[in-house]
């Protein structure tokens, strides 16, 4: 069962790895084999969760270093031209387009992509969850003054962004894809087809460099936090309990994204990659996590262990199936997306309840 699960879990990972030409076997090696046999809580071996996380976060850090170097290079170029984007485009357009697209690939496949694979654990473990808000999930002060992080990002020109939201989806993604007018240096026709489509823009160099610097530092901080973290059974179950019910929220994001609403969408984030990849990535981390604690659930209630297992499997199959159809060209209607979201809510709510029962039987309290 575990072997198949990892293969399934590898789906999302494969989505990422395929871009960077890393063999699938690397993904499989990242997750040690865990035997699904009854085991006592005190005998749980959880180091595999950390190993998985360390590898993903290391990849994030490597990707961010590449992005930072690219942003610096771009900034230097634009700066040398007195921030005259038209002049830069006229002079360096043919060179810039592949460079920007390369940066976007790195953002999707190395940086954000690997983060999504670790998000289920980072966001679900209280000791690490701050970094999820900082990097990926935090709202901006404008969107949600009650819950936004009270952080600052300083741009090279000295501009300070107060509570700007997550580095991935509020800052670097809109900057790289030009979905926010303030972060655009110049809208241009990348492919010369006569129309300027979404994503055809030169980023604002000052904004891009400042936010990439922030992203890079945040990922280094996460790397240090992960290195210091020693997973406990409470952490593992809390990650499952916390993150499984969030799946339906991500589906709501997806419902409102251009992947469903097309040009009607006003979303600035999740335009580069479907939110479904995010969901699959999170589920991947949770599947890895459950693989490591399944034995202890088996020891108290084998039927419950199998039920949780089946529920998580079903969710992963469901998400990957919809994503496959979406990538195959299916454009779901808002009502279809709504039906899928309702089903995901039903499944995630049931799984969260089942995990709660397991924790109660094991006497495991949520970590805080």
């Amino acid at each position, binding site marked *: 069962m575990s072997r198949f699960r990892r*293969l399934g879990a590898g789906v999302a990972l494969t989505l990422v790895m395929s871009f960077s030409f890393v063999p699938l076997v690397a993904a499989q090696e990242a997750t040690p084999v865990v035997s699904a046999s009854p085991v006592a809580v005190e005998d749980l071996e959880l180091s595999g969760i950390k190993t998985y996380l360390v590898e993903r976060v290391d990849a994030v850090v490597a990707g961010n270093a590449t992005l930072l170097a690219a942003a610096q290079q771009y900034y230097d170029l634009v700066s040398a031209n007195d921030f005259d984007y038209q002049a830069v485009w006229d002079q360096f357009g043919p060179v810039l387009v592949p460079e920007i697209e390369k940066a976007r690939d790195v953002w999707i496949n190395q940086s954000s992509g690997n983060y999504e694979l670790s998000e289920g654990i980072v966001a679900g473990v209280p000791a690490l969850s701050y970094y999820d808000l900082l990097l990926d999930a935090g709202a901006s002060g404008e969107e949600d003054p*009650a819950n936004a992080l009270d952080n600052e990002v300083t741009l090279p020109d000295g501009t300070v962004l107060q509570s700007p939201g997550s580095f991935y989806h509020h800052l670097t993604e809109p900057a790289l894809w030009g979905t926010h007018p303030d972060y655009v240096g110049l809208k241009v026709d*990348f492919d010369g087809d006569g129309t300027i489509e979404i994503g*055809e823009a030169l980023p604002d160099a000052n904004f891009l460099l400042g936010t990439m610097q922030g992203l890079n530092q945040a990922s280094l901080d996460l790397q240090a936090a992960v290195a210091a973290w020693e997973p406990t059974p409470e952490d593992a179950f809390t990650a499952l309990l916390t993150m499984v019910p969030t799946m339906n929220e991500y589906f709501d994001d997806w419902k409102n994204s251009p992947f469903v609403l097309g040009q009607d969408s006003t979303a600035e984030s999740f335009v580069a990659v479907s939110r479904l990849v995010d969901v699959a990535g999170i589920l991947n981390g949770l599947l890895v996590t459950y693989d490591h604690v399944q034995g202890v659930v088996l020891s108290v209630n084998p039927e419950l262990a199998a039920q949780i297992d089946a529920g998580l499997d079903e969710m992963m*199959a469901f998400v990957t199936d919809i994503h*496959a159809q979406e*990538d195959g060209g299916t454009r779901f209607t808002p009502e279809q997306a709504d039906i899928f979201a*309702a089903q995901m809510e039903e499944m995630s709510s049931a799984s969260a309840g089942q995990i709660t029962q397991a924790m109660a039987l094991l006497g495991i309290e949520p970590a805080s």
Partner: protein
Amino acid sequence: MNRFARVLCAGVLLGLTFVTTYSSHTQIHAQESASTPALAAHDLNAGVFAAQSQLILSNQDAAQAGIDRADVALEIIAPMFASDPDAVAEFQTYLDEARVAVETGDNIALAITKASISTTILGAAYRQTIAAVQSGDLDTAAAWLLVREYRPTTRFSGPNAKATTALSALSTGEMTLDDALLAISADLLDAYQGQLDAAVVDAVQAEKSGYPISQAEATSRAKGYWQIVAPAFETQHGADARLAVDQTFASLVAAAVAGDTATFDASIAEAQEILGQFRAAPMTDEERSERAHQLIQFLGLIPVEYKRGVNGTTVTIPLEIEEAKAFSEAAGAAFADIRPALNQIDPDATKTIALGLQSLDQQLADARARTTVVESSVIADAVNALEDQLRTVYPTEWNQSSSTADFDVVATLLDQVLAATAAGQYQQAESARLQAYAVFETGPEKHLLGFAPRLAQETEALFWAGNGSTRGLQVAIADHAPVAEMQAILAELDKVLAEGKQRLGADRPGNASIIFNSATIVFREGLEGILILASLLASMVGANRIYKKPLVVGAIGAFVATVILFVLARTVLLSLGQYGEKLEAVVSLIAIGVLLIVMNWFFHKVYWTKWIAHHHQRRRMLIRGAAGQFLGLAILGFTSVFREGAETVLFLQAMVLDAGTWTVVQGVLLGLAGVAVVGALVFFMQAKLPHKKMLIITGFMIAFVLVTMVGTTVHVLQVVGWMRITPIEHVILPYWSGVWLGLYATWEGVIAQVLAVVFVIGSYFAAEWSHERSQRAKIEASMATHSSGALSPDS
């Protein structure tokens, strides 16, 4: 399509290979393993959903495969329902309908059937579970108990495991059959009622969004959940009423299918009205009382938050409005739970309260949306009115304090501390912390002091300066501690609070324990006062005897005031409760001020009196200073007793609620006897000592009391937030050092105590220096007189 999108699609192709493999695997896995009720039910539902998700994409063949999968699952699950053939027949009928819906491409019909199948399984599994528990087949019960849903997760409630733990406790003999049955049915019915409410909301939302398939499915779900909880409704309201509601839900589904908006809206309104007054899960009297208490607590927090969040009619701190709205929702949920019971007491008042809560919630929603922002006084008035109405309609026992309910409120507020910290909003975190502490201090703390004083002290330490090994919340917030540290502190606090809740929720300790604890409180609080009184009284001999009177009058006055407080109406005391420590802080400051003056006077007086007596100047001195000294001593006598008396009475009153008046009075008498014995010992010991030794010992005793009082007062000032806290790192002081010596590990406290010692010593030396100087002056004057007389030709 731009280049980026093409790259993405190319990458996904590789993933698709695994998607296919994985999906196939999952189905095989599920079918192979569907040998338990949980897995078979899972597979039955999954098959129907697969059919739905394919049919909405017009993939009829794939949809048919989903129905086939469900058929296989039904074959597996049918024998498990041997005792409930009607359920199996229903499943078969629904599956046949589903197959027809797929064949005709009728998405709405399939959606309705899908919901019917899933809720019918849940209802049948519920009955199987209860039957198995009743027959003592706990393994079967455990297997069926997994075929269930859970209450939708909200900010204030998540899934719980009450049924699972009850079954577990029944199997180990820790719970009786009746209690386990009650807990299991309460948990399941509560979950299905929660799902029913959610389904009604979903139906409304789908109708607004123009999603007919979702709307039909939600109405069918609502109808299905209703069928599960309907027997409970019938028990409460009768068969006719149940039939009427059955008809409402049937109309709801029919209206959704027909697109009949008018009937749909009318049915929704009817359903919401009925559900608002019905609670399926049986509640114990204790649970109802707790929810009633929580309702008052949550309401009380609304104006506090709102006032902080607005300036006039402008929202200044949105987070505070968010919190006010959250508390309003929590109050609404608590009201919904007790509404059926209130309805039986006074339906008209209950309706008025419901409307008041609704209006309040709307005002908060408007403020949050900035559409209409009312002044804070409007919200405060509305809350006051609601509280009055609730207290009037509440049964007597609901109006009494419920410390276990308070724990839940404290937990909710502590969640806000963490949320605010995570958002980097430390000011809001501090405000939530203070509220949490206020709830703890006015409720559970006083009860804990009776049952488990150590836990009260530990909790307080974690709320404030810390316990030596862990920093306190107040300090950590002031220091903008990282989230991880805050989480660690809150985890420790949660643990101590959980232990406290468990201790208070458990059977109360025996009367002997309550008597001992109340006696200890009275003895401890009375000790300082009696040491001062006895020492001063013993020292007032000879010419100073006249000072006994004001001191005794002040002390007796305070004792009488304390007794009056004790016998005052309980409501008055409860209203004073929230000011308990602030009252103590103020009275303590007065006491210290007076004690410092008296001490200074005392040291000087010791010497002056002798001198005056010798020189026959007593009368003049007394006339000059008598009024001030009399008043000072009377105040000292009063404050020495009353500063602890008022607070002690509040603690004792809480214990009276738990253990009854007579039990506590026995403890009070015992404590007072102990105080009296100590007082008598001090007095007679002092009286037997030589005058000078007596004065020295009295001085030491007053100094000791002063230092203790200063330490305690600083602590109280810190507790009420009037003085900052700087903990002494790595210093862990035992519990008794704080209780008996006023010694807490904070720099402010220790420095203040050192200053008090310095003052005492300084005062002594100042007096001695003054005394010597006076003597020297007199001697010099005398010598001068003698020498001048000797030399005078007139002498």
